[in-house]
């Protein structure tokens, strides 16, 4: 079914309100992106989200948009506390999938002679792939419940990192209101052996170098310099979060019927924010978000250990410090100004990143002058970007921006394109060492399967919903 779309300017498009839509759609994209989107269902999904009760402002889509389940990936929508709903489809199965970025005192020149052994050791020390786990991390039920309530702070309390890390994580690494009693035994069982694992697909651990600085002042405050080695970790709540989402969908499908909410798509199932079903979901979702924060904190600790082993230097010399950690699949209560009035809204970001501006109290003090860091991973062969949040984002997109490159090719098409290619060899010749646990992963994750993330962040910058600070290029990539 085709979707009416009107161009507003070079990087904004409107889906006019019509039919069952309660608001309009607002898509950030350039013309080439919009033309590609016409051949898939993402725009229809943006329109469907605009049909949900209590939506405040437009159903928003970022330039890395592609079709997902219910909400598109790259979708943002905010809902009124009294009239609005919460939808698990607006968060996704991988609750609090997110990215963190570490900086170091090392240069690429120092690291490159050791890159192969570093990649081997990271692949050994950070579990990835089915059945992998750290044998030194076996949780009992009581400990797992503590993780769900405390998030990254639990990991720091066990010696995985420092209190300073917590100051550089969105929400300080814990979403309030988590209630482990709202989580099924099935989710607890599924999650227990997966805490501290990377996962597979587009999850990764990447050693990078700072390739280009676009904003020297912001880069200095983030502690970035040209040629510096950084590390990105992209993972989420693993089987725990997937199970929380699956459990919630069944309940929300029933809730949608109970509250008389018409669903253009069953995966948009939802419940009024004032309902017990909504409260239960948000409390379980918070558990999963906290699991993910703890997960990334544990992996960070093992990355730090690995660098110490390989470079025979201690933490003070390596200075592998956390720049920031962001969620990109989450629903959060936030206060935003709408028509001149401060309103408490439930903001859903599914494949979208919070991007709070300079001066915002939730932007860490160290970065308040420049805005909240935003970490945008690209594909494994090209580059990633570091941005900061802007007032433009806060005014127009509930302080949200893109989250990555977005796929343009199905996994089947990517594998077909990759047939006969020596993907590892090609990456190696580009100076990128790769370790992957899954055979399908490399072929499916070839760079051509993704949009060029440079195009995505260019639209974001042009639209004023993010400001580019630096570009990072991969040196080693570990995948599940």
């Amino acid at each position: 079914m085709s979707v009416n779309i009107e161009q507003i300017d070079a990087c904004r498009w409107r889906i006019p309100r019509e039919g069952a839509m309660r608001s309009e759609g607002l898509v950030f994209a350039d013309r080439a992106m919009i033309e590609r989107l016409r051949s898939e269902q993402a725009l229809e999904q943006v329109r469907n989200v605009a049909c949900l009760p209590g939506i405040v402002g437009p159903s928003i889509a970022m330039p890395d948009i592609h079709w997902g389940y219910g909400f598109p990936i790259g979708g943002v929508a905010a809902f009124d506390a009294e009239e609005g709903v919460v939808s698990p489809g607006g968060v996704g199965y991988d609750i609090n999938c997110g990215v963190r970025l570490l900086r170091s005192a090392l240069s690429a020149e120092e690291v490159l002679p050791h890159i192969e052994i570093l990649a081997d050791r990271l692949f050994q020390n950070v579990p990835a792939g089915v059945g992998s786990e750290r044998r030194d991390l076996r949780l009992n039920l009581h400990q797992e419940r503590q993780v769900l309530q405390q998030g990254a702070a639990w990991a720091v309390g066990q010696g995985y990192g420092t209190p300073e890390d917590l100051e550089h994580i969105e929400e300080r690494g814990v979403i309030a209101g988590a209630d482990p009693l709202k989580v099924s035994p099935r989710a607890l069982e599924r999650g227990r052996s997966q805490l501290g694992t990377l996962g597979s697909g587009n999850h990764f651990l990447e050693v990078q170098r700072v390739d280009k600085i676009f904003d020297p002042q912001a880069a200095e405050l983030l502690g970035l310099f040209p040629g510096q080695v950084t590390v990105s970790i992209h993972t989420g709540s693993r089987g725990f979060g997937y199970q929380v989402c699956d459990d919630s969908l069944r309940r929300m499908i029933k809730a949608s019927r109970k509250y008389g909410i018409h669903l253009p798509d069953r995966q948009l199932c939802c419940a009024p924010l004032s309902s017990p079903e909504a409260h239960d979901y948000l409390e379980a979702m918070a558990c999963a978000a906290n699991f993910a924060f703890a997960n990334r904190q544990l992996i960070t600790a093992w990355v730090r250990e690995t660098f110490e082993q390989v470079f025979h230097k201690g933490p003070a010399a390596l200075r592998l410090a956390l720049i920031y950690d962001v969620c990109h699949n989450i629903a959060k209560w936030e206060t935003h100004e709408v028509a001149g009035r401060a309103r408490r809204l439930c903001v859903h970001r599914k494949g979208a990143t919070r991007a709070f501006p300079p001066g915002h109290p939730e932007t860490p003090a160290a970065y308040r002058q420049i805005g909240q860091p935003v970490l945008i991973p690209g594909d494994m062969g090209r580059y990633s970007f570091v941005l900061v949040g802007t007032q433009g984002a806060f005014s127009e997109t509930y302080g949200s921006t893109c989250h990555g490159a977005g796929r343009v090719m199905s996994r089947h098409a990517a594998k077909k394109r990759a047939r006969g290619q020596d993907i590892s060899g090609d990456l190696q010749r580009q100076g990128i060492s790769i370790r992957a646990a899954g055979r399908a992963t490399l072929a499916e994750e070839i760079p051509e399967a993704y949009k060029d993330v440079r195009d995505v962040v260019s639209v974001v910058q042009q639209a004023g919903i993010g400001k580019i600070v630096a570009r990072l290029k991969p040196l080693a990539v570990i995948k599940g």
Partner: protein
Amino acid sequence: MGSFELLEHTADIGIAAKADSWPELLQQLALGLRRILCGDSVIASTLCLTQTIRGEDREELLVNLLNELIFLLETRNFLTAELEVDCRATGVLTLHLHGEAFDPARHQWQQEVKAATYHQLRIEQDGESWRAQVYLDL
């Protein structure tokens, strides 16, 4: 005679299956999931498990069945080679699963599957001809 094929999706993957009965349709979907998880690896039927799945309608039963197979792999390391489905009781499926422990040395692990979804989920019956389509989040 049942069959399945894998469906393209930008980020994930789908399974379309056809069969001559509801139980056989579910079997074909399970084989599709097996293909996605570990390609054409040979999986021995040395272990047996019996599991019960509940659901309010066929859609829920289908999604729950596939999610159960994913759950068993992740929590019991059990890789399903084949299954029989008993659906005589309304709203209940009894699964007799045959498989073995996942062995990365022998089973060509392809990728993790997060869950079967309700996205564009379709089950159609025309006499003795059954078809279904389901998408999986990777």
